[in-house]
Structure formats: C-alpha cells, structure tokens
C-alpha cells in the first residue's frame, strides 16, 4: 500500500522532534514562572486545548515546552482539538475513567453544568495566592464561590466598523446613541453599503443585540439577580425587546441575514465586513483574528475601528457596562493539582500573556498587565472600554446554565427570523419551554 511506510517514518520524525523540543530550553519567554513545584514526582498532564491551527498551535507548543524546561518533572502532552468538537467530546470525556487533565473551558453556566460531573478540580486554595492578578474577571469562572476554571484571555463585544466606508458616507464620528446609529445607518444605505452585517444563521450574533439592549436598560443589580435566578420577567427585559424591534424596523442588516453565518466563508457577516460590503458588525474582539483570512486586502486591520454599543436614553443600565466573556482552562480531579495550577498560573503570567496577545491574537489578555503590548488601535479602544467598564456582563448563553442559555439563543434567532414574540424570549429560559 502506497502510504504505509511514509506515515510511519514521518510520524517517528515528528515524535522525535516533539520530544526534543519538549525537553530543551528553547523558549525565550521571560515569564514570571514560579519556582519548581514542591513535588519531584514525575507528572504528565494531558492538555486538550482549541489551538488546532497556527498561530495559536505553535504558541501553545512553546508554552508547554517552556514550562517543562522550568519544571522538568512535569511533562505536558498538547492535544489540539477543533473548538466545535468540544461540545461532543467533553460530556463523553467527563463520563469516562480518564478525562484529560486540563481542558478548554468557557466559564459561566456551562462550567456549572460540567461541575455536576464531579470531575472538575477545585483550584480555590491553590490559586488564592495569585488569582487576584486577573482582577474581577476570574469571578466569572467560579461555581458556588469556588474557582473551578481559570481564564487566559478576555473578550468584549462592541461595534467593529470600516473607517473608509464611514468616511465615504460622510460620517465623521462613531454614533454614541441608538438614534445616532440609526441615522448613520441611513447615511450608509444612501451611500450604497449595508449598514450592519449580522450572522443570524449562527444564532449567537443575534443574541448580542438583544443582550446589549438589556444591559443598557437593566440596572446592574436587576441584571445580575435575574441571571442568577434564571428569570427574565423584570420589565427591563421586555423593554429590551421593544427597543430592539424598533431598531430592527429600520432594516439595518443585509438581505437574507437569517442564513448568514458569522465567520465561515464568503457570505459570512465577518466576510461582508472584511470585503467592504457592510460597514459595521457587532462582534467580539476576536474579529481581528477572523477578518484577515476572509479578504485579500492587506490593510484590513488598519481599516477597522471600534466603538462601544451606543447608549439607550432613559436606560437604567450603567453606561459603561460591556458584554464580555473569555477563554480558559479547567483541571480535572485526576490530575496532579499543584502541577496543573502552576501551569495555569504560568499561562497567566505577563510574559506568556504578552505572547498570546501579540503572536496568537487571542484578543484581550486575562492579565491586564499585558495590555501594553496591543498595537492595533481598534483593539486598544476595545481594551480601554473593557478596563473602564463599571462591570462585565457575561454573554447570557454562557452566564445562564447551558440549557437556558441555548434556549435563549434559539428564541432570539427565531425572533429575528420573524417567529415568536417577547414572551417566547422571556420564557425561553424556563425549563419546560422552547420545545
């Protein structure tokens, strides 16, 4: 058979290379790595992360190698898995006898659901010495007040816009209120552009709009308590639906937006922004890692600007609040917890954080000390808004328990497609609905 010898030879070569790389001190990261762990027992940690393509793939490999160099008794086996596959693999892995020692975590209600498997390691005491570096963000990764996950980056959602298209439509400053946004939309339409690209086919981008209206209209305490109680009957939520309906009435989105996916391919909403067919998109800071691949223009990143979600007059919400989330990792109970905790601490050290931001483009670092390394002005604006926010509102589908969060996304996507009403949205998070 043709390929029978070659893959073996190549596999051996690759394995040797990896082994050599893993045990040589080749990394130039100047991180504040902790002193060698107290145990001298040999430990191997299996690490499932979602960095399956470059540049993140390479960065994680070098991080693992650098850690091994300073902790020779700890070996990290990097297993990159495409992000979407975690939904299928994690429940199965957590049910098995040997789940991965470290795995990709998105926090919030999803983490709380996984916590019921009993296999997540409680890192509260181990991380108490250093977790304060991460500021309030780490709270979103707790379950019942205990630290079961640790973030390595943060995301904030805002409007990404094409400065060139704004200029062509005669818009000099980004809108600060919804009314201004609507009039800017009209100017953009007159100039022949789609004002806002929306990935309705992927469902979750729809949710950003409604959730931001809720964040602008609900006071912090009402919002936090509603999410905790999984109950959206407070009047500000219905007001959000009303305001959203009015906004949608101005037709700011591209035609056929219900089938447009967010990030995949030519017709995606990110693609429309990247190719100058649409002027704005409400998205997270990951936009800077998405759009370059979708266009042949090399100047796309400098063509993009960022502004926060506009104000809603009369809203009870804090005007600086932002919708946010992040990526992180959890350890499982079978792992060597001190080693796992030290590794996650290493990932959150300034040096590694800087590497993640500048080389791997993960967005905003969890450790704000690394923000100095951001060069893209749009990202800097996003970071500034995030740092200056009165509080972070986690995107609802992560904040809520998974069942409720997904039901909300679906109800909102249906609403955008013309099916359903305010009550289907409000009631979607109660357990017997949405079927």
């Amino acid at each position, binding site marked *: 058979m043709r390929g029978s010898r070659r893959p073996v030879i190549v596999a051996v070569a690759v394995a040797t290379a990896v082994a050599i790389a893993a045990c040589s001190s080749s990394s130039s990261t100047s991180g504040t790595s902790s002193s060698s762990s107290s145990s001298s027992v040999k430990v191997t940690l299996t690490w499932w992360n979602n960095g399956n393509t470059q540049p993140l793939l390479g960065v994680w490999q070098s991080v693992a190698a650098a850690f091994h160099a300073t902790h020779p008794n700890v070996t990290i086996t990097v297993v990159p898995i495409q992000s979407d596959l975690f939904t299928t693999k994690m429940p199965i892995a957590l049910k098995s006898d040997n789940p991965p020692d470290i795995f990709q975590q998105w926090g919030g209600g999803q983490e709380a659901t996984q916590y019921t498997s009993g296999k997540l390691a409680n890192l509260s005491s181990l991380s108490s010495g250093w977790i304060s570096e991460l500021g309030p963000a780490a709270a979103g990764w707790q379950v019942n007040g205990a630290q079961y996950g640790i973030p390595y980056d943060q995301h904030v959602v805002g409007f990404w816009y094409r400065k060139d298209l704004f200029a062509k439509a005669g818009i000099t400053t980004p809108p600060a209120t919804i009314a201004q946004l609507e009039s800017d939309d009209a100017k953009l339409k007159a100039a022949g552009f789609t004002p806002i690209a929306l990935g309705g086919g992927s*469902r979750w981008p729809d949710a950003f709009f409604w959730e931001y209206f809720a964040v602008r209209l609900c006071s912090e305490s009402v919002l936090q308590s509603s999410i905790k109680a999984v109950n959206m009957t407070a009047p500000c939520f219905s007001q959000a639906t009303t305001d959203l309906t009015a906004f949608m009435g101005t037709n700011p989105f591209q035609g056929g*937006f*219900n089938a447009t996916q967010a990030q995949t*391919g030519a017709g995606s909403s990110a693609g429309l922004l990247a190719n100058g067919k649409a002027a704005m998109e409400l998205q997270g800071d990951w936009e800077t890692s998405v759009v370059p691949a979708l266009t042949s223009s090399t100047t796309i990143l400098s063509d993009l600007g960022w502004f926060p979600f506009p104000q809603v007059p009369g809203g009870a919400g804090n005007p600086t609040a932002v919708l946010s989330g992040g990526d992180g990792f959890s350890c499982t109970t079978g792992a060597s917890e001190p080693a796992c905790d030290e590794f996650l601490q290493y990932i959150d050290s300034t040096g590694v954080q800087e590497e993640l931001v500048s080389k791997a483009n993960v967005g905003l670092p969890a450790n704000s000390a690394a923000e100095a390394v951001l060069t893209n002005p749009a990202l800097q604006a996003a970071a500034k808004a995030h740092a200056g926010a009165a509080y972070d509102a986690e995107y609802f589908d992560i904040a809520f328990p*998974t*069942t409720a969060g*997904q039901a909300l996304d679906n109800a909102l996507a249906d609403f955008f*497609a*013309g099916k359903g009403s305010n009550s289907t949205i409000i009631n979607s998070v109660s357990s017997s609905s949405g*079927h």
Partner: protein
Amino acid sequence: MARTQSARAAAAGRDIVSRPAAAGVPKSRAPRSRRRLRKAVELTVLIGPPVVLFVGFVIVPMIFAAWYSLYNWSGFGPLNDFIGGRNYTGVLSGPVFHQALEHNVIIAVLSVVIQLPISIGLALLLNRRVRGRTFLRLAVFAPFVLSEATTAVMWYELLQPGGPVDAVLKGVGLGGLVHYWLASTSLVLYTVFVVATWKYIGFGIVLLLAGLQGIPPELREAAAIDGATPWQATRAITLPLLAPTIRIWIFLSVIGSLQLFDLVWIMTLGGPANASTTMLTYQYINGVQRTQFGYGATVSVVLFAISLVFALAYQRYALRRDTAGALTRAVM
C-alpha cells in the same frame, strides 16, 4: 408471487432444499436427528458471529441509550433524576417536534416521488453499453463519496446570495428564479432536499445497477423480436424485474429521510426559525447543545418507534412479495 420452487419453499417456511433425490442416485441419507443437528450447527456458524457483533455493538448501546430517556440527565454526573415518561410527553406534545416530524415526512415522500424516477432513469441509461460508461457512472456516483459535512459546506457556499448558483441562473437567463435559498423560511426545506438528492442519487444508481445485472438481455431481445418498442420493453420487462430492488431502495430511502441530520445541521442548523428542522437536528439542539441528554435519548426512541412502525408495515405489505427475484420462471 412465489414463482420458483425455492421461493415457494421459503414462503412456506421450509428450507430451500433439494427435491427428493432422483431415483437411483446414491445419496447418504443421514438420520433426521443428524440432519437437524447439522442444520443447527450450520445456522450457528452462519448466524452466530453476525448476531454477536451486532448485539454487542449496536443493540446493547441502543438499550442503554433508551434507558437514559427515562431520566432528566445532562450527560454529566450520575443518573439520579428518574422522571419516567415525562420526557416522552414533552417530546410528543412539542410543537417544534411536530414540525420536525412533518419535515422528515415531506422529505421522505419527495424522495420517493422525485428521486426514485430520476434514479431509475439514470440507472437504465447507465446500464447500456455506451462509450464512456464507466466515466459516466463515476461522475454520477462521485457526490455519494463526498462526506456529508463537506457537501454541506460546499453547497452552503454555492447557495450564498449572489454566489455561484445565482450567477449561473442569471447567466442562462433564469435570473427571475433567484431567491434566498437558505434564508427563506418557505424555501429552505426544499433547498435541503435538492442538495440531499444531489448527494444520494449515487447510492440509488449503484443499487439499481446491481438489480439490473440480474436481468438477462435476451428478454428484451425476445420482446424486440415480438415488435415491442424499447419503452414497451422497459415497462413490461425491466421495471417489473427491477421491482424488488426498487422496493429495497424505497425502504432505505425512507429510513434515511427520517434520519437526516448532517446535511441540514451544517447548512442551516435546522433554521431559520425551525423552517428546516428535522427530528435529529431537534434532538441535537435539545439533547446535546442544551445538555438535556435524557430528552435527546427520548427523541431517538420516538424516532426509532416511528421507523419501526414503517418498517413493519412495509415488511408486511411490500417486501413479502419479494420471495422471488421473479426471474427464473420467466425464462423457462
């Protein structure tokens, strides 16, 4: 219609065995019990391994999965919230599930009404000794080899507003037919059907070609001698002889329609607003995404029950007649 002796024997529940040996031909007549033992051994050897493999890797997981349907379970943690039939009432009364079932049935019916004639026509065409026959068969079969995931990704790109499909339609002057193929709630299900047809025609062709192999060309020659037109010959001879294969095709096609998932999921996620939802996309959204694993298992059991009813009914009324390839008597 039992036309051969073997078929009649099978229908009557007897083994397809020889007639009593012709007189004078020596044959060791083993005692009845020995023959029965022999038969039992043969059956064990023949049926044993397949059944063991099948029960172990298919039936056992199936039973466990059905067991989960009695619980309220997220897939994580222990199975400790027994709720009996509550999942079932939830599924069976859910309007979205009804919609999904309706969509599956529509696709099943369309596949018989539209895909079947196309498959038969193509199989007949591809059975003739035309130049380049192998290439033609390959071309028609190739979409079947493509994985569902890639088919969906590819067609998603092709069907974008202003994308290649729209461009082709405009190019041949049919620009008026351009619609939002995936965004329109009234069209999306049929768009999915067209893509599924494109993909699965190859399967039908392969099956029908195999069926056509069993039909001797002399039959058509004989008909030609009798003055029949090719179409008459097809109608009177080929199609009836192909009927058993067609019946298998229908069976597999309906089951496949009921289980449609991958294509729909990647192209439309069952949307927009559940316009293209199928029972299995419904199951994935509720069972996996919403981590209601027990509920998802319930959907699978309900789907199984629906398919079983169809299978049993089909077995009884349609496939029973295929006790013969309906071949040999006609030749005699």
